[in-house]
């Protein structure tokens, strides 16, 4: 096993838990009580859950009653996409069209595909530009083609691979012009951007704890009043009958503590991380002049902690291996069950050819990233690319 210190540049995969979240979770793990129970222990647990719910609502610009806890971002996306599709179609059988983009996270993408394959939905893929962004005019045009067939629009707030920040408020407004519900996956955005549910105008928004310093396995779907998805999980009727299952009190407590702490530091952190990210881009381009920065240019359209490159002539997984051997953790941005690197569906949707999509790497920065991490990458990316190119040449024989 490598003994070199880890240079962790994969915060978009998961970010270290904040000490205050670990503290809150550890403390709560020692406590007893099911928040659905009526006795004293239950009441104590319920109070923790409801206080956490209120704190999260405040952080995300929502009302406490709009926060539905889930087992994470994937579950929140499944509940939003499937649940809202089912409820809209049940109300009006003509509404079978789901409008979304090809750059969504698989939790949305594959939920939509499953609805199409198994349940009569029709996907309408909104075109993204070369930076991965979709404009409100594109959505408006797609909706106006046949407004009465639209069940739901789902567009992510910020892309997990290339960091593109979508114009969520204009998209939500466009959807509402046609009376169509708008869901956004804000899993990546919530860690780095001010994410205000009410101001965005979205009807539903997915968030998760572990991208912002909380534990893995807890998230929430924020649901505007009157927006009632058909449940995916049936059972004890927790969470307003929308999401059954005993609530994970320690995780929810830690989620709220992390979200509050992260929000308090967000503005300063975003500037700090963006400066480091800009330096990372500079160092990588200096070492590998023909590397291509994918996604929007650094600025308001891009997550501050995201840098995503294509390295022409390289396989992303060869680069990942070489950097891993140097103690640098990053990501090719997509993986299938067998662990075989697939070309990034996000880059393909942005119009990249397959070799550019295969030869890509994502570096994502977060609250523990320091200048030394960037310098360490800058010191070895050049040699790694040279080696990976040689390996790709060997494979082409």
């Amino acid at each position, binding site marked *: 096993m490598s003994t070199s210190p880890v240079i962790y540049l994969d915060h978009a995969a998961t970010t270290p838990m904040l000490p205050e979240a670990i503290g809150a979770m550890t403390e709560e793990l020692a406590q007893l009580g099911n928040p659905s129970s009526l006795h004293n222990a239950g009441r104590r647990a319920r109070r923790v859950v409801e206080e956490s719910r209120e704190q999260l609502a405040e952080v995300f610009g929502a009302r406490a009653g709009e926060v539905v806890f889930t087992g994470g971002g994937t579950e929140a996306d499944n509940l939003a996409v499937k649940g809202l599709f089912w409820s809209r179609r049940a109300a009006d059988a003509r509404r079978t069209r789901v409008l979304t983009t090809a750059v969504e996270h698989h939790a949305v993408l594959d939920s939509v595909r499953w609805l199409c394959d198994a349940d009569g939905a029709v996907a309408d893929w909104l075109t993204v530009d070369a930076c991965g962004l979709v404009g409100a005019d594109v959505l408006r045009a797609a909706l106006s083609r046949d407004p009465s067939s639209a069940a739901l629009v789902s567009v992510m707030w910020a892309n997990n691979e290339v960091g593109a920040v979508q114009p969520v408020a204009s998209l939500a407004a466009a959807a509402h012009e046609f009376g169509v519900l708008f869901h956004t996956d804000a899993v990546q955005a919530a860690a780095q951007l001010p994410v205000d549910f009410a101001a965005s105008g979205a009807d539903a928004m997915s968030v998760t704890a572990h991208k912002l310093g909380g534990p893995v396995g807890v998230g929430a779907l924020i649901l505007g009043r009157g927006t009632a998805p058909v449940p995916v999980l049936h059972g004890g009727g927790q969470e307003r009958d929308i999401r059954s299952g005993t609530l994970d009190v320690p995780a929810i407590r830690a989620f709220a503590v992390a979200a509050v702490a992260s929000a308090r530091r967000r503005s300063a952190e975003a500037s700090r991380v963006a400066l480091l990210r800009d330096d990372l881009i500079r160092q990588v381009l200096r070492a590998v002049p023909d590397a291509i920065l994918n996604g929007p240019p650094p600025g308001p359209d891009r997550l501050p902690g995201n840098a995503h490159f294509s390295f022409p002539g390289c396989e992303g997984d*060869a680069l990942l291996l070489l950097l891993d051997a140097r103690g640098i953790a990053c990501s090719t941005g997509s993986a299938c069950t067998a*662990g075989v690197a697939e070309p990034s569906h996000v880059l393909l949707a942005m119009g990249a050819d397959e070799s550019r999509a295969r030869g890509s790497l994502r570096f994502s920065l977060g609250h523990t990233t320091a200048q030394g991490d960037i310098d360490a990458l800058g010191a070895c990316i050049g040699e790694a690319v040279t080696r990976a190119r040689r390996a790709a*040449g060997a494979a082409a024989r």
Partner: protein
Amino acid sequence: MGIRVLAAMSGGVDSATAAARAVDAGHEVTGVHLALSQNPQSYRTGARGCCTLEDARDARRAADVIGIPFYVWDMADRFKRDVVDDFVAEYAAGRTPNPCLRCNEKIKFEAVLDRALALGFDAVCTGHYARIDASNGALMRAADDGKDQSYVLAVLTSDQIKHAMFPLGDTPKALVREEARDRGLLVADKPDSHDVCFIADGDTQGFLARQLGTAPGKIVDADGTTLGEHDGAYGFTVGQRKGLRLDRPAPDGNPRYVLSIEPVSNTVTVGPAAALAVSEITAVRPVWTGCPPPLSPIECSVQLRAHGEVYPCVAWLAGDELVINLRTPARAVAAGQAAVLYDGDTVLGSATITAAR
């Protein structure tokens, strides 16, 4: 001093133990599972194959237990081109290929080795049962005669062997299983793989028929008399007795065997067992790893198929061809198989059989 080793991990007990031994020997080891199928479900499932999602998971778990980095390398395109398509083309040409040998030659010790060397590794380690003579770099049979796999590695060149590592060559299989158990590797009791990994149901004839379609032709005897019909000459192997579906028995009442396969006329010739006896073999593309290319005939022994018998012989080079004269006749020698020359346990060289008389 340790070197950088890439351990090819199939998900089975042998390659996992081999990787663990490489770590123990002080090397810096990285595990790699080769994804060989474009559609993993189509290859053999569970314990029997080497290319399924379950195998990838087993390999990953073993790497975690050993404590080494682990990646999956997608070799599906290369495997299809160099092994599967070649397998089909060889049968279509009337020969009987050995896909495991081809996979070692073209995938593990070419595609994977080249990529590994380019990435800065020094060697590729596998769970094959074979040894490498430290004094001269020659390939040798494994200590466990029953598991010896030197035959399917004998196509490797000296350069390939120089970058190969077979840590299990000195150990009987039973002890390897025991060692795997002691190491906490959960694959310790996984059954050995058998047959052709890319033919999911084990039905080679059915697989070939799907690839090549039916091509009806004649089954004849040595005189050219038609005895029956077949659906495709590729469905036969020299020495085969069953499945000939001949109309009438031989005049002497003895069983008949496939003697030769002629792809151009799509004809299968059959005859008595005695006609299968072979005393001279011609083979092409010789590779010499245990001795320099011989300038004069050499006394040695030859193996003509995996786990096959070993025959004493004299072998010499006639231009680009290797000619092998058997001291005792062999039975049913199929073109397309490798003729591997041994001096005792040492592999001298190998070549691909084209003709046998």
